[in-house]
């Protein structure tokens, strides 16, 4: 009987701790979520400018569910509502953390223009950016070249870029 009581108290204590933790995290989420969303939105805006130029703005936003990594597609226009192209927001993760990219495709060439990193929570975050993402953007290396210090992250980036390219090809055909 005493044993049973002990087990019940133990389970209830752990349950109360877990519930309180959940509640605290919930409150923290409530306090921070708008600010985090705003920061992410600003990062997307900055990424669009980085890819398409100073006057580029998002004219239309659409969520995508047919792909593993591509979540959003943004229609980008410039001065005088001139259509500049599409930007695809991709998110993925592996055992080293999450990466989210903004991949831009120009209307003129219908090809990959540039991509930027929105979120990079990889353990080798800086290595990935320095040794793979930056050279790739500067066209110094091929997309399949993953012989860098962050091979797993590089593979994930490559897969996301390939999927964004597929989504873009499909969209241009339509």
């Amino acid at each position: 009987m005493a044993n049973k009581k002990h087990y019940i108290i133990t389970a209830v204590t752990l349950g109360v701790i877990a519930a309180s933790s959940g509640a605290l995290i919930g409150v923290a989420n409530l306090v921070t979520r708008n600010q985090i969303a705003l920061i992410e939105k600003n990062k997307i805006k900055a990424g669009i400018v980085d890819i398409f130029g100073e006057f580029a703005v998002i004219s239309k936003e659409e969520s995508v569910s047919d792909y593993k990594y591509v979540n959003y597609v943004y229609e980008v226009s410039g001065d005088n509502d001139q259509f500049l192209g599409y930007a695809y927001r991709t998110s993925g993760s592996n055992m080293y953390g999450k990466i989210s990219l903004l991949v831009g495709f120009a209307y003129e060439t219908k090809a990959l223009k540039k991509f930027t990193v929105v979120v990079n929570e990889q353990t080798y975050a800086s290595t990935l950016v320095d040794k793979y993402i930056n050279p790739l953007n500067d066209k110094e290396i091929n997309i399949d070249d993953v012989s860098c210090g962050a091979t797993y992250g590089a593979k994930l980036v490559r897969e996301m870029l390939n999927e964004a390219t597929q989504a873009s090809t499909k969209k241009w055909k339509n």
Partner: protein
Amino acid sequence: MGKEKGATKRNFLKGIVNENPLLVSILGTCPALATTKSVEAAIGMGLLFTIVLVCSNVLVSLLRKLISEEIRTPAYIVIIATFVTIVKMLTNAFLPELYSTLGVFISLIVVNCIVLGRAEAYASKNGVFDSFIDALGMGAGYTLAIMLMALFREILGTGAFAFGKIFTFIPYFKLQIIPVGYEISIFQNPAGAFIVFATILAVIAFIKNRKTELKTIKEREEKIRKQQEAKALAAQGGNK
């Protein structure tokens, strides 16, 4: 009252000097090696670490009589993980530069053995105030240790000391210490972190060994002096 104040001071200082978690106990080395590229990042990491350590120590101490033996470790992990998640959310929202600089190492505070170690070894056995002071001392000790590492790595690796890039509310400034082109970039790489860490540990070991050596020499001299005195006394007694 004075005695109590002295004990509190000793409790705080032990985390900085005698029981420094990084330089004496060699705990929490992973984030110390990874987040010490710049002093600013090290300060950020140290602050977040201290906040988590203080909050978890205080809560564990408060609940120490309620948490039974069987669920101690899972309960501590849940408490620590909660504070890490909250700190991570707050950093993401209000210090985004620090969040992107430290990246996954904020989440990894959950598995930092110093936090769990202090909860288990100290907070579960002591009162709230003592646990608070202990956590504050350990946090300060860890922060100072990683700041010291970062100072060497930043100056030697980049040739300059910069501030205001992560804590954007502080005006940015950069002080060029080593002429451009003469910096040693290896100190910005993981290998450089190991070199700096090992050098600091070697210096500490040298100072400790020297202290012990001097103490031993002093004791031996004292012993010889006492023996000589005893001999002299015995000789005097014999003469009489």
